[in-house]
Each structure stands twice: as C-alpha cells, then as structure tokens.
C-alpha cells in the first residue's frame, strides 16, 4: 500500500493548453480524454446523460467543460478554464481556451504556463487561419511542444492523403515561423480513434496515440538549470538572529556555500544555508520555494535578484518587448503603466511601437496603435532597472505584465526580447525627454487654469489644489498676480513650467475677455484644463477682499466696464463649479476627480513596507 501511494506521489506533471473553434471538436476531445482517463465521476456522467436524454442526442461534452451560466446559455466558452486528469503515468493540467477571434488574450493566458499546446484542425476543412493563429500564439508564448490533432478523421473516411496534405500545409507555416516541427496525430475525438488507443481504422499511422504522446513527451524540458535566478520575494526576519530571503527559484540550482551576486547593488556573498520547514538543504533547484541566508549582511529587499556571478542577468531600463494587448482601452504611446516583472514593480513608459504583428499572416506590419487582442513590439523605459533574460531563454525572467494605473486592470502581457540598443550606455548623451520627466514625476504636464469673477475665490482654491497635488506626490507651482502679469505672460510661464514636467495652477480674474483661447493655444491643448468658478455678481462683490468693485464703482468712467463685467462668464471652460454652493475642500475634490478622469493624475500607491 505504502509503495502504491509513494509511486503516485512521484508522478510528473504536464501542463498543456488546448485551442480550437466551436466546431473543431475541442470540448469533445477534452470530454473524451477525461472520460477515458476515468476522471469523470458518476454524478457528472449522470447529469450529462440526463441532459442527453432530454435533448435526445449524444452526450454533449461541452456541458462538462462550459462552466459559467452565461456560457451555457450562449453555448460559447468565454474564459480560460482549468481541468485536471491523471493517468497512472502522469498528472495533467489542461488550460482550456476558447478559440474565438476576440479571445487572443485567453489563448495567451493558457499558453503562458503550458509545456505543450494541442491545436485542433478539422480534417474536412484543412488548415484554416484560425488554426494557424492558435499555433502562432502558443509558439509566441514559448510553448516548447506543439501537437497538431487532425480531428474528425472519421468524416473523411480515415483518408491518409487528407492527413498528409494538412501536415504539409502546416509544416510550411511552421517553418516560416522558425519553430520546432509539431507532432501530428490523426484522431476522431467522437469515436476515440488514436485518442487513447491506436486506431484500427488508421493502420497507416504509425505514431503514438494522443494520450500516449502526452504521457511520454519529456516534461520540464524548457526548465533552465544553468543560470540561477532567485528574485527576493519576502525578507524573513522572525527574530534578531535570523535574516532570510524567501522566494521561488525561477531557474538554476543553488548550493550551500555557492557564491552569488546580488542585483542591483552588484555585491557578492555566499549562501550560508538553505532553510525550509522540512530542514536545511544542501542544494535547491527550480522551481522550489526556499529561504536563503547569506554570509554577509547586505541591504537586500523584495524585488532584488540573486544570480550566479558567472551568468549575470541582463540589467537595463530600456527594453524591447513583444506585448499582447488585453484591454478594451488601447495602448497609449507615451503613456505610463505599472510593470510587474518577477517580484519587482516599477513604472514603465511606452516610448514607441516598433512594429505590429499580423497574426493572420504571421508578418510584421507598421502600426501606431495597439488595441485589444493585438500584438506588437514596444520600446519601453522603466523607472528602475529590470533584471531579466530574453524570454526565449527564460520564460520566468523574460515575462512581465502591464497594469493600468487608473483602472488597476492587467492590460498587457509582455515578453522581453532584449535590452534596447542605445539605452543605458548612451543615456548621458541624450537630453531628458518630456516622457522621462512624466515618468519620474508620475504626472503629465498640466496647466490648471482657474478663472472666474474677481472675488470668486480663485486664489484660495488654487492654493488648496496646489497643496492637494503636492500631498499626493505631485509637483505643482501656482502662478498668480502677486507680480502684475498679463494674460499672455501667465500663459507663457505656465507653458514653461509644463515643459519642465511640472503642473501650473493659474489664478485668473482678468475679466475683459470671456475666452481663454489665446492662453490655451500658448500652453497647448494636451496640457490645458480650464475651470470656471462661477459666482453671481452680488456674491463675488460681497466676498471680494481686494476692493476691486469699490474701486470700479468709484470711477464714473468705468461704469461701462462694470456693466460689461456683469455679463462675463467663461465660455470655454472644461469644468464649471458654483462657488456659492460648494466649500473649498469640495471644490478641490471635484477638480481632482475631473483631472483623474482626464488622465492627468497618476495614482500613487506605494507598496506596503
């Protein structure tokens, strides 16, 4: 009994993804694998058969695999689902991904952790664009092994020439991509041919059945045991005498006494012990989660990386990467995002789209925008350096995600190609760009133009906004009339502050001209935000501390002006707020909310210590 259990505990794990269209028979194939591997249970089967009786048809395997109510109603699969089965030889985790056009992001998600991908092709239809796309994305995400299952062979009379034609077509496509040749298997998922057992109807096929291949293909073949990559995930200090660095070994092997190098401070030390709950280890290897203690007390924190000195990781702030865009809001060139890479988070600026990838044609195309489910090559600059390897060498240290700073959504999956040429080395020679300033200040240049009648309280609001921006880590400077300035001069100064990457908060009660078009043109529409503080003349006059109204009324000549002023309200404000109804904190909150909506303000959220 014990040996039986022990043997089961020593099983290997293979993760694979499946992709196929509604009609390719993917659900049938998965249902068949689960059924034949006896992973379907009586109550699941009886639920299935009960449904089949009602519909008077064969069991509908999709009922097993379509988990969400919305999907069952619409008859589609909308999300990656994970399924599990085991044979005496191996345990399997399937990432079952929907094959619709709009779900590139799901296929990428499923492929990101897979050792193998099964691409289904309907024998009747031959190689279609959809199948190429599935193979392309699986390969793009670095899935080491592709299996092309040519399904529904029963519907083409198990004809070898149909299979061979598909193999030829697909091989041609794969060669273009420059990836390893896939394994081709002719099957009938419905009837079980070549799924588990060799098909008697296809004696011409001499290769393995699908399950046999899944059970025997080497696993962990892309596991890298050469270069140690150990990102520090958690600094463990349970008491004064213990200081350990916890994390998961992403690649390589670490032994007690090994010399290691710490990125980013480039100090060297040796591994004193490898601590685990089950006792100290002499050596540990990927993908184990361990805690290391080091011989020297160095300043090491979460996000740092311990590596083999002989094989350092790449260190760069400028990288070139392929990204799959996953959000409904398209990529913003010159936009900033939070980038998460290993255990490190930093801000990243998208400097440019180098090219886009046309998945249908498997080719590079020009493009200046990246929308949902599109793939492109980006140049990125990060605020802190990344410690990385090229994705093709190391999936764990070559991958990252981008997070939108406003919505907190994961908007992209990235695969690092290389450090960008002309990056850090020549950095000194390059002038600091506006984009770099934006990244550093965590804000877009902004001119907040506060206008309104004399006495509407612009100065008080401006001071409060300036402070509020300052408190949340922003860099703002207030421009008012403490020195006499004209409208145009204020706009010029604001534009200069904006050029330096700062926010200008401008107090304006020049009342002759209801339009601020000239100032807006000087500052530039991208940075301009005009708020009109609205107050009735009576209220403004009552609250005016400057003596302006008294002065105007005292001068007969200026009666006309006072009348003119009575009509004046800003005609082109982005936001109008009534100061009679709101107090200063409310006004400030409204203004900040509007700025956030417009994307002027980043969200600063420091990691908890």
């Amino acid at each position: 009994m014990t040996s039986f259990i022990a043997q089961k505990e020593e099983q290997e794990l293979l993760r694979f993804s499946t992709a196929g269209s509604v009609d390719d028979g993917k659900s049938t194939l998965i249902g068949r694998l689960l059924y034949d591997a006896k992973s379907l249970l009586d109550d699941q089967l009886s639920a299935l058969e009960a449904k089949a009786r009602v519909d008077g048809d064969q069991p509908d395997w999709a009922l097993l695999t379509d988990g969400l109510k919305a999907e069952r109603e619409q008859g589609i699969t909308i999300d990656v689902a994970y399924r599990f089965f085991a044979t005496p030889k191996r345990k399997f985790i399937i990432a079952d991904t929907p094959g619709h056009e709009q779900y590139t992001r799901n296929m990428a998600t499923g492929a990101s952790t897979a050792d193998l991908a099964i691409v289904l092709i309907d024998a009747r239809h031959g190689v279609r664009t959809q199948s190429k796309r599935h193979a392309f994305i699986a390969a793009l995400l670095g899935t080491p092994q592709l299996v092309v299952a040519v399904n529904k062979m029963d519907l083409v009379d198990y004809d070898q020439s149909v299979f061979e034609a598909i193999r030829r077509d697909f091989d041609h496509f794969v060669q273009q991509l420059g990836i390893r040749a896939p394994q081709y298997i002719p099957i009938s998922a419905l009837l079980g041919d070549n799924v588990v057992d060799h098909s008697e109807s296809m004696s011409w096929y001499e290769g393995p059945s699908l399950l046999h291949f899944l059970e025997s293909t080497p696993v962990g073949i892309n596991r890298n045991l050469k270069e140690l990559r150990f990102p520090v995930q958690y600094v463990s200090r349970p008491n004064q005498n213990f200081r350990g660095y916890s994390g998961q070994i992403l690649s390589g092997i670490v032994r007690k006494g090994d010399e290691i190098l710490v990125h980013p401070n480039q100090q060297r030390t040796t591994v004193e012990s490898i601590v685990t709950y089950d006792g100290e280890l002499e050596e540990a290897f990927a993908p184990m989660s361990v805690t290391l203690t080091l011989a020297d007390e160095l300043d090491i924190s979460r996000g740092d990386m311990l590596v083999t000195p002989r094989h350092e990781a790449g260190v760069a702030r400028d990288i070139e990467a392929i990204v799959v865009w996953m959000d409904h809001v398209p990529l913003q060139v010159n936009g900033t995002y939070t980038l998460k890479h290993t255990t490190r988070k930093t801000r990243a600026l998208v400097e440019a789209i180098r090219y886009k990838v046309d998945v249908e044609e498997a080719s590079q195309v020009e493009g200046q925008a990246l929308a949902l489910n599109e793939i492109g090559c980006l140049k990125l600059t990060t605020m802190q350096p990344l410690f990385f390897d090229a994705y093709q060498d190391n999936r764990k240290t070559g991958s990252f995600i981008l997070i939108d700073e406003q919505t907190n959504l994961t908007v992209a999956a990235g695969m690092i190609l290389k450090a960008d040429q002309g990056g850090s080395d020549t950095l000194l020679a390059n002038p600091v760009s506006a984009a770099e300033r934006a990244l550093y200040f965590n804000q877009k240049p902004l001119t907040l133009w506060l206008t309104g009648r004399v006495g509407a309280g612009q100065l008080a609001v401006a001071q409060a906004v300036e402070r509020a921006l300052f408190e949340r880590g922003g860099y703002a400077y207030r421009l008012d009339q403490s020195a006499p300035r004209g409208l145009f001069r204020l706009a010029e100064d604001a534009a200069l502050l904006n050029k330096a990457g700062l926010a200008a908060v401008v107090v304006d009660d020049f009342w002759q001209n209801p339009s601020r078009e000239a100032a807006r043109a000087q500052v530039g529409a991208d940075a301009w935000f005009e708020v009109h503080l609205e107050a009735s003349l009576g209220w403004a006059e009552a609250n005016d501390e400057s003596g302006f109204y008294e002065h105007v009324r005292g001068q007969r000549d200026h009666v006309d002006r006072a009348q003119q002023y009575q009509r004046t309200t800003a005609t082109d404000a982005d936001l109008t707020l009534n100061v009679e109804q709101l107090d200063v904190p409310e006004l400030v909150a409204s203004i900040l909310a509007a700025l956030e909506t417009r994307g002027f303000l980043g969200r600063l959220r420091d990691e908890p210590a």
Partner: protein
Amino acid sequence: MLETIAPAQEQAPPFRLLTAKNQAPSRTLPDRYRLSHLRQLEAESIHIIREVVSEFEKPVMLYSVGKDSSVLVRLAQKAFFPGRVPFPLLHIDTGYKYQEMYSFRDQFTKENDLDLRVYTNQPAVKDGTNPYDLGTAACCGQLKTKALLDGLAAGGYDAAFGGARRDEEKSRAKERIYSFRDRFGQWDPKNQRPELWSLFNGHIREGESIRVFPLSNWTEIDIWQYIELENIPIVPLYFAQEREVIDAGGTLIPVDNFPFRDRLRGPIKTVKTRFRSLGCSPCTGAIRSEATTVGEIIKEMFQVRTSERANRVIDHASDDAMERKKREGYF
C-alpha cells in the same frame, strides 16, 4: 512537374518568433532535479502565499476546519518558516458544525500557534436561522455569505486566502488565483483580470479586496496524497467508523448531537461511515466507507465514482447554484 513559383512581389516579411526556441533541448533533465507533481504544486502555493503577504496590508486566511484548510495552514507554515504565520485565521462559524470540528479547530490552532478569530452572524443565529425553515440557499446566505462578508469587513482585511480548488465544481474551473472582489465582495466572472505566468496583479482600490486560492491547481487526490506525505492532522470525521445515522433518502446523516433529529424521516441505522467533505451538520451527509487511514482513503478515492461535493445539499439545488453563490460573495 509544376512547382509553385514564389510570387515576384513578396508581401510583408514573415515574422520570426523571437520569443520561441527553435531547437529541441539537447538533453532531458537529470533525475535528481525532477520535482514530483506534489512538490511543484507546493512550491507554487508557497509562492502565492508569500506574494500576497508582500503586497497586501491586511491578509487573513479563511479557515473552515476541513482537510483543505489543514493543507493551507501547512503551506503557510512552510512559506514563513522559521517565522510564525504572519496573518490570522478566520473561521466563519454557522454554529451547525460537528462537535469534532470544534474540538479539532481549537486544539489544532493552539498546537500550531495560530491566531484564530471566529465570526458568526449573531442576529441570524438568534433568529433561529436554519435550512429546514428557510431552505438551504437562504440559510447559507445568512450564516455563511453574509457572515463572511461582515467578518471580512469587520477585520478590514484586503486579501483573504481560501482553500477552493478548480477541480471542485465547474464554475470554479474559471476562477483566477487572485479573484478580484468589488466593494460588496462580489465576483464578476465576465470581467476577470487575465492571469499569466505567475505574475499576479494585486492592485485594488480602497474598500475592494481579493480572494486568493493557493490550492487552485490541486485536485482532491493531490490533497489526500499531500496529507499522507506530510502527515497533516485532519478532523477524525474523515475516517470511517461506526456511526448512528439517519438514512434520509440516500443521504446518511449522523444523529449524534444533530439539532434537527425530529425533522428527519428515515430509518436510523448504525453504519460504518466517513465524510468526504465537511460542512454544516444539517447539510452534509456521510458516505459508507471502510477507510480508517489516509492510505485507505486514497485507495478508496481511486475507486470512488462520485464527485467530492455530491454529498453537499447546497450545491445541486440548481445547475448554477455555486456560481450564483460565488457572485454574491460566497467562497
């Protein structure tokens, strides 16, 4: 022979997959550097637990006293050894758990130096909420879902670990490891964040939270094998023993301390039974079994042909019962 001639005007250059290896690896892994599936799952779960503790301010572990909770606790101990588990355990108590569960809970948490908090929807308990008068759905809604949401809010927790697994139920198959919840604790299955590699996005706003499922990729068998391998203590109810049960239409309900004994119709028998999953006594049945050790349970598992939660009354009320409960905030 007619060969296809390449067109004179080539289209865009074919895209070389620079992210993919173009050659087969030269050799396979040496045996000593292979990691069994259980150790791989263990390493992955520890990574998840540490990541949450590093990125969130106030995590908590939902503790249900069941076998998955026992495994989860062991993984947390491994993640922070030689330190203590750096977050509290929260037990949402309906008051209807078996006596063995309460005694196990108290002893287990004490012996393992765990910070246990218990939360109960007291007003509902005072009102005498029970599945017989309200129905299982409404009872769970009050004593489990509402208690859970209130308990999390009362503690101000921004991340809550749970022991749910993707193999348990089909709506769970699509749940993320980091499962985002809005300010009302609700799950929106159509709007989940994509989760790639092992890079988790823990960005939330004030008042929002995540549920974290470190056992997502484990199966029921994996749990039992791990319990065996690690010698993890579990509630004795999981082991077969002679129990006095009411055979209520095929569901075997132990009558010892059973609060609704007079409401059940059916013959009382003495049968050797055990529990495959533990819940509230009115809604969890026992199964006939001879398995008295973890090894025997595993052996039985390889023969058993019903899914784990089939003895839970709450799940099969309707086809999408679990999904609905999850949307409302249930685990």
